[in-house]
């Protein structure tokens, strides 16, 4: 494409002018395969696998596209706010008339690099189980000793002490002075946790005030994470601001959003405990008194029963009853004997009426042979001795003759 001469006015199509600009950009070596640093913003994925974002600094912004082919080898997913260096070329996207950087490589810088390290260690330790809820130790309810690993300077340690003092006056606080930033800080932190464990502290606070990601970095070190994990005493982390999360926070048995809150979590309110104890004491006394009261009443009740109160009255009553019953029994027996006697008499009369002797009274007689009453003529023979019994005696005779069949 050649530019028009001043003698002849040429009219371009949109595409012609756009293509011209595109060519200009692509020919400029300063715009091809260059390194650009900035902060990622407006990051977005697409279904096609390409990623898009803006790269910005304090005053400018440039759109970036990283195609799937290039971003496949990325070892992290960029996020808004991270600082990067990228290698790419400026290109013009004709359908939108938009220039953009086509990104070939993408590297984290400064905090960005640390952030990647943080993510890698976090996922490694998580896989290893260092963050497991089941491994987390319970905090003592009423600790007698608290160890604090922190900087002896600054507000943090004083904030903690102030809160503890306000709530609970019977505790020993020991500070293990430690560096809390810089390369050597991690060794102090690890040593502090070990020393306080050896001294059998009941709970350990790991604390630091707010700072940049780089400044709080020691709390993202692996050896610190492992020292927390291996601590016998429960560890409470209170690092940076509420929004800062470090590896130490994930491993700690309890994370406190701020150092003051750490103190509140660890130390109970003494007034509350005393109230609880007094309440228990009251309940115990009241309950025991009540039991005595009930038992006493049971005894009183028993005591008021007549057998205890006036035993003789009761005994006399029984005696009297016994007498009465004896009398009744005696009377009943007499009546019974009389009745029996009467009945016997009656029976005698009736027996008499049936007796053969009663017949003799009326002038009849009974004839017997030996001891047997003769009732059949066949029973006797001529010459037998027979006896006749009459009312007043007995006659012996000899049978001279007999008649009848």
């Amino acid at each position, binding site marked *: 494409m050649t530019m028009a001469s001043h003698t002849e006015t040429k009219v371009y199509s949109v595409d012609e002018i756009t293509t011209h600009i595109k060519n200009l950009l692509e020919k400029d070596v300063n715009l091809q395969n260059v390194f650009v640093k900035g902060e990622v913003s407006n990051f977005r994925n697409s279904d096609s696998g390409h990623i898009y974002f803006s790269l910005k600094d304090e005053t400018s912004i440039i759109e970036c596209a990283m195609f799937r082919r290039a971003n496949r080898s990325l070892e992290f997913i960029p996020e808004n706010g991270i600082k990067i260096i990228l290698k790419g070329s400026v290109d013009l996207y004709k359908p939108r008339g938009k220039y953009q950087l086509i990104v070939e490589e993408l590297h984290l810088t400064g905090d960005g690099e640390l952030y990647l390290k943080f993510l890698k260690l976090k996922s490694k330790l998580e896989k290893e189980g260092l963050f497991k809820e089941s491994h987390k130790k319970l905090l003592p309810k009423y600790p007698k000793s608290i160890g604090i690993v922190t900087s002896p300077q600054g507000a943090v340690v004083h904030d903690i002490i102030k809160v503890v003092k306000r709530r609970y*006056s*019977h505790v020993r*606080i020991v*500070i293990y002075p430690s560096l809390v930033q810089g390369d050597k800080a991690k060794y102090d932190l690890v040593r502090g946790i070990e020393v306080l464990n050896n*001294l059998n502290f009941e709970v350990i606070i790991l604390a630091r005030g707010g700072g940049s990601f780089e400044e709080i970095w020691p709390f993202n070190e692996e050896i610190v994470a492992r020292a927390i994990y291996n601590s016998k005493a429960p560890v409470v982390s209170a690092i940076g601001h509420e929004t800062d999360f470090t590896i130490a926070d994930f491993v700690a048995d309890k994370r406190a959003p701020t150092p003051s809150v750490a103190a509140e979590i660890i130390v109970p309110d003494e007034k509350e405990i*005393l109230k609880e104890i007094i309440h228990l004491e009251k309940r115990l006394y009241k309950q025991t008194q009540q039991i005595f009261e009930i038992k006493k009443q049971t005894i009183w009740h028993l005591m008021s029963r007549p057998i205890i109160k006036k035993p003789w009255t009761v005994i006399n009553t029984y005696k009297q009853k016994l007498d009465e019953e004896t009398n009744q029994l005696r009377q009943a027996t007499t009546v019974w004997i009389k009745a029996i006697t009467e009945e016997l008499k009656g029976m005698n009369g009736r027996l008499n009426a049936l007796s053969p002797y009663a017949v003799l009274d009326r002038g009849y007689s009974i004839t017997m042979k030996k001891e047997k009453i003769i009732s059949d003529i066949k029973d006797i023979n001529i010459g037998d001795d027979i006896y006749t019994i009459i009312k007043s005696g007995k006659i012996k005779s000899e049978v001279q003759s007999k008649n009848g069949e």
Partner: protein
Amino acid sequence: MENKSFEGAQKRIEEIIEDLEEGNLPLRESIDRFKEAAELLKFCDKELKEVEMSIQKIVDKDGKIKFEEFE
């Protein structure tokens, strides 16, 4: 109860009170429980007040641990 702790003692006192509240215990046993709880209460009180507030810092030098008053 060996090696008793404040928490353990408190829990035991609560148990005892609940037993007493149920009211099924023989008198002798009630009295024994009451005595036990009263002892534990004394223990809790002592335990609470046993430690005096102190604030120190560790000096960890040449492998030796020393304590110093803090501030």
